[in-house]
């Protein structure tokens, strides 16, 4: 039970945060007509966040072996999440812009946390119940 | 020379500012292969005597010699090695390590001084398993001490004491928590140890246990006397 919660709840919470943050406090630059890199990164992050959230929800209803797979998927999604604003799409290059000063680091931190928690969950679930 | 030689051993405690001898001028010899039992009511200095033999409590006067070593003259390391290799100690209270499984508890004394003769891990495991089997607690190997009953813990501590094939086995109330059947198993095992050359020193107040012993002593207010008519 504890293992199941540990494998699912952090993923759900982090997924929700990844989906919500770019749309709220860690938003992209505002006030210009033509959407830029930040805007697309923001949209992509929200999408990835929803996927991670759903992986966490599914993990609540399945057995340990499937949970391992779900958490590996969550970790890979988190790598994708980090890659979006850094490599794949990027953000504005103005260092003091909100999207770069807040959204980018927020996504990186949330991504790293997702990877760490998914890693722990995989480790917990792959450990034999009784010591040999 | 006797394996265990106790000469004029005295331990003086102070209770309410009045000194009294918990152990008073005790002399005792135990040879290899001899099974000695000490009886007496609790509070009469039996455990203090045993703790002095094992070097856990310093005597006020007198000396203890084990296998040619004067206990009081040994350094901490030498004394520890003596406890580990030469003495097997079954305590009255529960002294298993709660963080280790039963099997690990029994094996630990064998790996404590790794520098001299290191047997194969498989051999050690096999030996520990064998001891636990003889004591009828083999199925508890993977359990932790808190999951065990008092009698089961006692039998595990006996297995632990025997792990390093001690020359001197000291047992403080080894049958204290045991039912009749277990008592017989334990006493039979102690007897076998004595028969195979181990000196066994047992403290007990269980009359059933006494018939396994070669010699019986009585401890009364710190004074040790040989009991006749055995």
């Amino acid at each position: 039970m504890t293992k199941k919660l540990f494998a699912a709840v952090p993923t759900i919470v982090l997924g929700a945060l990844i989906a919500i943050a770019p749309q709220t406090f860690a938003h992209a630059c505002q006030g210009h007509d033509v959407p830029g890199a930040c805007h697309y990164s923001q949209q992509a992050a929200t999408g990835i966040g929803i996927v991670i959230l759903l992986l966490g929800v599914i993990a609540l209803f399945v057995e340990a072996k499937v949970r391992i797979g779900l958490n590996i998927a969550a970790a890979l999604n988190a790598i994708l999440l980090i890659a979006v604003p850094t490599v794949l799409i990027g953000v504005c290059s103005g260092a003091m812009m909100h999207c770069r000063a807040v959204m980018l680091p927020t996504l990186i931190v949330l991504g790293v946390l997702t990877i760490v928690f998914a890693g722990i969950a995989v480790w917990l679930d792959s450990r034999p119940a009784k010591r040999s | 020379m006797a394996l265990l030689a106790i000469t004029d051993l005295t331990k003086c405690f102070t209770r309410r500012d009045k000194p009294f001898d918990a152990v008073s001028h005790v002399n005792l010899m135990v040879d290899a292969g001899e099974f000695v039992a000490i009886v007496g009511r609790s509070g009469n200095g039996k455990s203090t005597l045993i703790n002095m033999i094992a070097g856990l409590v310093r005597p006020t006067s007198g000396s203890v010699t084990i296998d040619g070593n004067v206990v009081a003259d040994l350094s901490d390391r030498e004394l520890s090695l003596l406890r580990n290799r030469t003495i097997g100690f079954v305590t009255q209270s529960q002294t298993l390590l709660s963080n280790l499984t039963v099997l690990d508890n029994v094996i630990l004394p064998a790996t404590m001084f790794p520098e001299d003769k290191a047997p194969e891990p498989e051999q050690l495991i096999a030996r520990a398993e064998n001891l636990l089997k003889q004591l009828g607690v083999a199925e508890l190997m993977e359990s932790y001490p808190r999951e065990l009953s008092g009698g089961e813990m006692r039998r595990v501590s006996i297995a632990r004491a025997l792990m390093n094939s001690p020359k001197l086995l000291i047992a403080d109330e080894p049958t204290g928590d045991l039912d009749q059947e277990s008592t017989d198993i334990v006493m039979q095992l102690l007897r076998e140890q004595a028969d195979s050359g181990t000196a066994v020193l047992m403290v007990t107040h269980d009359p059933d246990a006494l018939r396994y012993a070669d010699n019986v002593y009585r401890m009364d207010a710190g004074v040790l006397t040989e009991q006749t008519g055995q």
Partner: protein
Amino acid sequence: MLIDMNKLPFENLKRKPLRTTALLAVVVVLSLALFGGSILATNLNTGMASMERRLGADLMVVPQNTAQKAEALLTDGSPTTFYLTKDVADQISQADGVAQATQQTYISSLAAACCDEKLQIIGYDPATDFVIEPWVAEQFDGTLEDGQMLAGANVNVSADGTIELYGRDWPVVAQLASTGTNLDNSVFINQTTVPAMVEASAKVATQVMPEEYAGKAVSSVLINVAEGYTAETVATNIQNLDASFKDLGFVYPGGITATTRTSLNTLVAYLTLFIAVLWVMGAIVLIAVFSTSANERKREFASLRIMGATRGMLNTIILKESAVIGLTGGVLGVAVASLVIFPFSSLIGRQLQLPYLQAGPLLICGMIVLAVASAVVLSVVGSLLTMWRLGRPEAYLTLREGE
């Protein structure tokens, strides 16, 4: 895999998850605070030092009522435009006590394309400059031609090496190193380029200044005073040149840095106090937890003793347990602090309103080592009392007579 005295400490920690987690949590908080705090303090000091180097003038003369704007420009303010005319500036340069004088022109750009922010455009005179050149020289070893730009560290330079401003692409010849001050958001142009910039602005947006001023607008005169003069006396001399000069604004960069230095020192002092209090409290908690467990563990250590463990082995067990907790907690604390402090570096700098410049990797490595080592030392010291208590022979008397 066979149990021995080396593995015993780890089993002990594993089998007491609650106690281990509690101890770890304390150490994590301490190491996090120490590492985060020292990084913060170091970055502030680095930023401060850089700011002091960049404000290399004794006196700055600016138009009336703009002294505050000018100060903000140097520290953390937003881009502005203000100016006086060149003839005034030339007169100021002649005042008694002026050793060196150079003129600069400040123009605030508009945010044009997406992801562009307002830039501070600074026009300077390479011929007389003594403020920007020495700094620029570290990155750029040539002369800034008309129409070319030098960009501050935070300025968004496009891939082809230009900046789009007022519908024109301006070539950037060099991007400068970060200073932690507002200068990072500035672009530098030759003063003779200023009219072209004003003209360009007229085409696409509100003109930044009237056309007739474009060629003669000067925002400030930066002055180094001659030997034997103070910045204040030179300011008085300038005011005495002409009745209309009474209203000029005077900025003393030395004073700004002194003020900033004071607020920075206050912040660092509070930070130090906070961390010190935290560590004292943490040490008390650790010692308390370790010594409570010492009582509980008397029996455990007595039975190890009976099995033949030497006093050294018992000490090693305690030492290892506390060192493992200190090391793990220290590393975790540094990791958590790093996760916040490095990605959010520019946000922290912005919120602090103080010059903030990320320290170099070597210094950071040093601080990581320091934080982890402190955590290990504290946790080991916390267990010393336990070691001493269990080391006394009386501890084994608990086995007497079934007490």
